[in-house]
């Protein structure tokens, strides 16, 4: 119960930020040359002025900017995200359709980056300054410096085209018509390369943070005490050190949530995944304001939610914080 009230308070505190973002993007996009009808005419390959005017009336684009904004905000208050110009469906439906792909990708990437970063960071810290540490740290740096889309392209060339081990893209093989567990496995198989691509840079960051954090904690008094007491090294690591070293990692997740969604735009483009990232890009290009604002709204909520969970987790991990 307390958690819900805390969550509600956090949401209320974030409302001004949300409003700022939505109004900001709305006003900004008004300055973009061309509107959604122009994008539609481009797709149609032509059309006369009467059609264009008719469509503008249909999409409510003949109203003033202030009026359009007011209408949008009024709908938002009633949790109505509006109608998508591109898809002719409610924005909520469109986003829900695309959510699974993005959530799977982000979830998988985050888990991979976190788990691998943690493991590698611990190993590097334990063997500090010896060759495992040097190797891992160097790899970490290289991963950090690699442009994700370039890595994705090279991975496709190597693993899909030449070795033919993994598929070149898509969210599962549609023509096969798999269902149930088979479908889940198929999708998972298609997500291997995208997960690696998106998770790479975050892996590098977590690795470095974990290593630094571990080293710091390992030098603290209580660890020396535990060692003096004769506890085994592994037990020390898992029981005492890890808990404390994880704190900065957990904070980082909150900070990276927004960046990850941005990275998803490019990865989804390279691997043809039907996710929110690509949808956002499409709605900018097609000037579909409702869809773009809907995505911004959902992603902002996601970031706020993740940060909230992170704070909860932080409180549990660190007994010094009054939980």
């Amino acid at each position: 119960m307390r958690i819900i009230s805390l969550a509600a308070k956090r949401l209320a505190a974030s409302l001004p930020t949300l409003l700022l973002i939505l109004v900001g993007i709305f006003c900004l996009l008004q300055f973009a040359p061309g509107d959604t009808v122009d994008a539609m005419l481009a797709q149609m390959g032509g059309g006369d002025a009467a059609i264009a005017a008719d469509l503008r009336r249909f999409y409510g684009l003949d109203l003033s900017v202030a009026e359009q904004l007011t209408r949008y905000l009024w709908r938002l208050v009633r949790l109505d995200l509006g109608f998508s110009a591109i898809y002719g469906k409610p924005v909520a439906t469109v986003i829900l359709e695309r959510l699974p792909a993005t959530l799977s990708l982000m979830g998988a990437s985050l888990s991979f980056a976190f788990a691998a970063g943690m493991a590698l960071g611990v190993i590097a810290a334990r063997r500090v300054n010896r060759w495992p540490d040097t190797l891992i740290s160097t790899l970490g740096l290289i991963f950090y410096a690699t442009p994700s889309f370039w890595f994705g392209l090279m991975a496709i060339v190597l693993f899909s085209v030449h070795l033919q081990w993994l598929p070149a893209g898509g969210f599962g093989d549609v023509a096969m018509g798999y269902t149930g567990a088979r479908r889940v496995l198929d999708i998972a198989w298609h997500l291997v390369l995208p997960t690696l691509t998106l998770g790479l840079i975050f892996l590098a960051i977590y690795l470095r943070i974990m290593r630094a954090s571990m080293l710091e904690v390992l030098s603290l008094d209580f660890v020396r005490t535990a060692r003096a007491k004769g506890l085994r090294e592994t037990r020390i690591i898992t029981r005492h050190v890890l808990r404390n070293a994880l704190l900065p990692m957990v904070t980082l997740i909150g900070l990276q949530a927004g960046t990850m969604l941005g990275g998803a735009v490019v990865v989804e483009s390279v691997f043809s995944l039907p996710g929110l990232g690509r949808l956002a890009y499409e709605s900018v290009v097609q000037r579909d304001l409702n869809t773009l604002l809907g995505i911004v709204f959902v992603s902002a909520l996601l970031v706020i939610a993740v940060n909230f969970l992170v704070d909860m987790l932080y409180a549990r991990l660190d007994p010094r914080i009054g939980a």
Partner: protein
Amino acid sequence: MNRRETLLLVGSTLVGVPAMAQETPRRGGVMTVHFSTEQRILNPSLQASTGVYIVGGKIQEALVDLDAAGNPTPVLAESWESSADGKSITFKLRAGVTWHDGKPFTSADVAFTAMEMWKKILNYGTALQLFLTAVDTPDPLTAIFRYERPMPLGLLLRALPDLGYISPKHIYETGNIRQNPANTAPIGTGPFKFVQYERGQFIIADRNTNYWRPNLPYLDRVVWRVIGDRAAAAAQMEAGQILFSPYSALAISDFQRLARDPRFEVTTRGNEGNARTNTLEFNFRNPILADIRVRKALAHALNIPFFIENFLGSFAKPGTGPIPSVSTDYYPAGMPQYPFDVAAANRLLDEAGHRRGAGGVRFSLRLHPAPWGEDISLFATFMQQSFAQIGVRIEIVRLDAAGWLRTIYNDHNFDLASGWHQYRSDPAVSTTVWYRSGSPVGAPWTNQWGWNDPTIDQIIDNAATELDVPRRRALYADFVRRAQTELPLWMPIEQIFVSVFNKRLRNVANNPRWASSSWHDTWLAN
């Protein structure tokens, strides 16, 4: 091998009869198609574009289609005739055709579609049917189109395969046509019945068991896979995950590579009806470009055959004007041309008074290439490089689709623009409108250059209503001659869309707009 056998072997090789021609079609199988740009709607009665036909054309049908020779052939209309004054055109419709939901197809559907969709909403349909006043339906299998001004039968029939798709009246008569859910779940009379559309992923259509052509189609199912990335599509083609990639949707280098692979056929066959020309559009509001010597100089500065051979992999040919050579009825030979001649270009610019200044630059221009098609951006780069040779500095401005349309055709904020002109089987449909004055500001792909010529307007208007075929042909020859002399825009390259087929597919490309056609006789070998 004895002498007789050797002779037979040599003989059969010389005759070259493909074994395929004698194969019997196999029933069944799934055809997977590369679907590169998703559309907002799938109903071809409401949107005329290849992106819609690739799907909608299998589900819905038009009054006529094209046969292998490119002549109109009956589909939903069995026969047609025009009155002597050209103001009434009667179509006799096919009997025994049902919609996918079981209701019968009648002339009421034709009347409704023509008046409510073609005339009011369909792009290019609104212009074509501008003078359509009514469609009479004396009986369920007859539709009479009544026009205010004479409509050349040839023009109408050639336009109908693209602009003549029929939608069911009983589905669309209630509610707003634009918001009808059938727009993304089409109901038609065609060989394939819509099943599912997963946005961003795929579209599925299954065999129509009640199709009016007996024992057709052969295929069980068609799946359109959404693949936005060209390289990914080529990879899927090679992996056999897609069997057909239409409308030049792969990279040019992939065309060249797949053409060398014996599993695939890379060809322009079957797309002759979908010709387009690359354009170089001039904005007369910039006084430099208002001078015809400058325009001619720019034209002479481009080595088009070199560009085609080295950059387009020879999947194109030099253009000669607004009417491409695929138009056997109207293509006029011997029109004014502007071959590659750097000396002439330099001389013309000198004459026009533009001396070379610092760094050898005479003046600068901004070029806005359209953001679709790999060939457009390659051409833009080539133009930048070529014009640098004659002292014209080009800055390429990149815009997305909506921005580009608005900037060029509405704001007129450009010097040079380069895109595609789609030739839609008759000059009156979407070609002459690039030259005729009077289009409202903001209408894309029309004359927005700040130029007009009353003579050419007159020629265009006369040709649009001329019923006599040879006279019409002569008028369009005049039109092209004038267009090429005045050069308000230039169309130096002619292209036909390239299709890539997996050779397992049979009965493909058997009419000039096959990719947009209904695929009722396509089959899949093992």
